[in-house]
Structure formats: C-alpha cells, structure tokens
C-alpha cells in the first residue's frame, strides 16, 4: 500500500489489521485476493473464527435450560454478547437487543408485530427511494394485507434524500417511517437524527435499516432517537445467520410476539400461554448461540481497532477511490452524495456490469455487480445494474489501484 493512507489516520496500521484476516492471504485464480465486496459481506478476523471454534470445542450447550455447567457457560456467553451489542449501539437496556437472523428478519419482525397492530386500512408507511428490498418488501406485504399504502420519499440525482419532500409525505395516516442509515447501492449516509426529529414531531416512529452503517460509523441509538434499528452480524466482521433488532423498550413491551415456541414463553397450558419477558419474547426456539457469541467477538474486535479509526481510514480510501475512478474515461459513478460511506457504485459506457464483474474476478478482484437488491433505485437512475466496489477496514489504496488496473484491462478486452 502507498504511504498516502498510512499517513492519513494516525495510529491506524492497516497491515496489522490485514494480518488479522486469514482469508486475505489466499489467492483467487492464482492471483492475490482483492476483496472489495464488503457491502455484501465482510471477511472474518481470526478473533471471530477462534471464538466460534472455542465455543463449539469447549462451551457448546443449549442456553436457559440446563442446570449443568456447560449450559451455564453458554448462557453467560450469550448474555455477555447481548450486553456487548447494547454497549456498541449505546442502547439503554440489554432487553432492548433482540437477536435475529439478520437485518432482514429484524425488519420483518417489526412489520409483522408492530406493523400488524398499528397499521390499518387507509394508513400509510413511508420509506425512501434508496431502500434495499429488505426495507421495501416487508412493508409491501403488510400494506397489501391491511389495505394500507406504501409511500416513497424521493431522492435527487446525487442519491440524497429530499428532506422537504419526505416531510411533506408525512401526515396523520402515516404510522411508520422506514429508512436506511446508509444506502447499500449508493453509499449515501442519511441524516437519521434529523429524519427522526421530523417524524417524531408528527408522532411517527422510525425504523432504521442499519445493515450498512453499524460496521462503518459510530451508531448511538439514543442520540439518534430512532425507535427501531436493525443490522446484520455478517456485514460487521461477524458470522452469517445472526443479526440484531434494537427497539425502544416501551414499544417492544407493547408489541405482540412474532414466532411462537420454546424460550419465548413463561408458562404454557392448552388454554393460555404467558409470554416471556424481553428480549426472550421475540426469540422463539434455540437461537444461533454461536452466532451471537461470534458477533460479540466481532464487535469487540472492531472496538479494539476503534470505529472512529475505521471510519477515518475508509473515508480516506473513499476519497482516493473516487478520484481514481472519476479519472477513467467512460466511467460514471452512481451515488455522489455529499455525505457518503465507502461504496463506489459505477457504470461504464458500452460495458455491462456483469461483464465488468467477470473480468475483474479473473484478476482476483471481488466486487458486486447487479441491482444490489435495490431494483426501484436502479429504475430511478435509469440503469439495469451497477458494478459496486465497497470498502472495509482492511482495504488499502493498493486494492483500489488494483481495481483501476482491472478496469483498464477490461477496456482492453472490450476495445
């Protein structure tokens, strides 16, 4: 890597960080891996891999059940992971942290519980034009079931939410606002505190899809004031299959349970079941115990680096990459918001993103191509798909140089 980024963030050593991620030393098609698909999923540090191995090697048991020692160890580790998440988001109470399978399941949980009890015929749910399908489809399903209406706050050509038009959409029929903190396809960082302020001034709760934000910038749910916040473990250096829903205690208390089963009950008879307290009310069945503990390890790892350092490093890379890509003739960046995170989405004249992806892959460079589960957003920009390079804490300017070199090579193929 060049000296440029090393100097940008004092006290941050990307070489040392890279050494923590075993997969980064492997080769793809005989070439060193250049991993730039972090918005899809991040790689895992040794600390997470070792935690999973240790859990299954030494601690595995079901939680909240046994009187035996292993069950207690597993339960304690699971509880500790929940408190780690609570601290990471600065939630007021560990009971406000619900473990799910991921951000998608978190949003579905809210749609199917809070949504089904509060949204009725003629009501409205407001989302934005830059949402991932996971923050569109659960609301469509709800609105269809209830005879409610899904309304879409528009964005400008840079990919920024039009706040005035968003505000104008809110009215007495609006029962919930759903918004991404960071757009997965554009990298736009939405002004969540301001959005929450506007919505709350009209008495409307706000759900934030934080799948792309929690890994890349400091998130304080109390400072943001949002009512629900969802994220996925695998995008923040943790395992797949684990995610989080944060919800304000009063809202969660009032919500009906979602899935029924073991662990979410206090007592069951065939006549009447009493539900368990928070957070267990929303965690039916044996959860992904190892996943939660692995997520805790991932958050501890990131805290060790310092989320502020990660943010500064990735921002320096974003600026470096933006300049480098803008200099390529025939390349157009999609998503040029002033407030932006480490996502470089682009299209090229006469070369389809899918072909870009294959040709870069042959050079060991992993990016995402396609509609990024945001088809309405692609329609907004009048394109079928983009190529997307997305950054993480272990990326370097050398990775971005490789990307630029790869793009020049693909221009040769298509010359």
């Amino acid at each position, binding site marked *: 890597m060049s000296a440029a980024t090393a100097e940008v963030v004092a006290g941050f050593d990307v070489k040392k960080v890279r050494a923590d991620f075993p997969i980064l030393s492997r080769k793809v098609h005989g070439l060193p891996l250049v991993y730039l698909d972090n918005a899809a999923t991040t790689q895992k540090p040794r600390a997470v891999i070792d935690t999973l191995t240790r859990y299954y090697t030494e601690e595995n048991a079901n939680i909240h059940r046994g009187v035996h020692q292993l069950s207690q160890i597993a339960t304690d580790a699971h509880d500790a992971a929940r408190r780690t998440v609570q601290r990471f988001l600065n939630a007021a109470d560990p009971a406000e942290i619900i473990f799910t399978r991921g951000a998608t399941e978190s949003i579905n949980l809210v749609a199917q519980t809070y949504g089904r009890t509060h949204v009725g015929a003629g009501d409205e749910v407001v989302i934005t034009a830059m949402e991932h399908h996971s923050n569109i489809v659960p609301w469509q399903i709800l609105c269809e079931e209830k005879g409610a209406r899904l309304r879409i706050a528009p964005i400008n050509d840079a990919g920024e939410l039009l706040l005035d038009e968003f505000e104008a959409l809110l009215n007495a029929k609006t029962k919930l606002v759903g918004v991404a903190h960071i757009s997965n396809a554009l990298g736009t960082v939405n002004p969540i505190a301001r959005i929450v302020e506007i919505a709350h001034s009209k008495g409307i709760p706000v759900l934030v899809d934080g799948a792309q934000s929690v890994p890349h910038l400091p998130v304080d749910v109390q400072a943001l004031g949002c009512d629900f916040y969802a994220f996925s473990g695998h995008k923040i250096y943790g395992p797949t299959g684990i995610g989080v829903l944060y919800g304000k205690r009063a809202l969660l208390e009032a919500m009906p349970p979602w899935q029924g089963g073991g662990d979410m009950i206090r007592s069951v008879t065939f006549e009447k079941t009493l539900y368990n307290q928070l957070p267990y009310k929303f965690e039916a069945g044996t959860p992904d115990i190892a996943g939660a503990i692995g997520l805790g390890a991932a958050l501890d790892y990131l805290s060790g680096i310092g989320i502020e350092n990660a943010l500064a490093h990735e921002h320096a890379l974003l600026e470096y990459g933006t300049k480098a890509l803008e200099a390529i003739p025939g390349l157009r960046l999609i998503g040029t918001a002033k407030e932006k995170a480490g996502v470089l989405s682009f299209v090229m004249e006469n070369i389809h993103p899918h*072909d870009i992806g*294959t040709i870069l892959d*042959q050079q060991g460079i992993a990016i995402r191509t396609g*509609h990024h589960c945001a088809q309405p957003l*692609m329609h907004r920009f009048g394109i079928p798909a983009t190529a997307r390079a997305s950054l993480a804490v272990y990326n370097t300017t050398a990775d971005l140089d490789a990307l630029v070199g790869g793009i020049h*090579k693909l221009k040769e193929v298509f010359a």
Partner: protein
Amino acid sequence: MADLRELYQEIILEHSKTPRNFRPMEGANRQAEGYNPLCGDHYTIFMDVADESIRDISFQGSGCAISKASASMMSQALKGKTRQQAEELFEQFHRVVTGEPGSDTSALGKLEIFAGVANFPTRIKCATLAWHTLQAALRGEQVASTE
C-alpha cells in the same frame, strides 16, 4: 486471462455491440419476456410462427455482452427452423454451456463459440436467458425467469 478470451470471443463481442434482429416485431404471434432477477438482464423475444415454423424472430432488451450476443446469435440460428428443431437446438446448447459430460458441439454450428461459458458457472444463465425466453414464447407462456 486466457480463459477470458475463451469467454469473450471476438464474435461474441461483435454481436453484443451490433446485435442482429434487434428490433420489435409488429404482428408477432409469439412473444415472451425473460428476466434474470440476479443481474437485471431483461429481454423480449418476438416471433412469427406459422405451421410450426419460425418465419421471423427478433428481440429487444438489455443485458451483458454474453446474454445479448446469445440472443443475437440465437435469432440468426433459428430463423426458418421448426419449433421442434428449436427445442432440440436449445437442448444441445444447454448441454454444451453447462459443460455436461459427453456434450456435443458439432450440432451447434456457429453457436459452439459459447462452449467457453462452461468454465464460468456464474455466467451460464446469461447465455441461456434468451433461450429460456424463446422456449416460454413457443409454449405460449409470457414470462421466463432464470431463477
């Protein structure tokens, strides 16, 4: 990069830049839309079929070089063929691009240049999208999807 040249052969690149029969068809009596939901590729195939014979075929839409070249070359290969011949050709083509053991490129004619796709499993659906759409149109279905 050697593999890349096998995939992106000159003829394929040439067809993707200047696709043949790339137009809507007024009076088409068979028509279907094909989607690849993973990458957003989207084509419409038009045909004029009479007495089980494809008298004319054209397409419109957008997608990657592989999918567009495949649609273009398919349209050339099938003009004047019977429905039965079209179905058989698709079967051969499918075997070749999926790299099925014992698949035979000899019946494919010019389409054999798509054999390189077999080394790129993520791109097989690009090569077959137009064909799936064609099959849907011949069978009277309106929408085909690779998923």
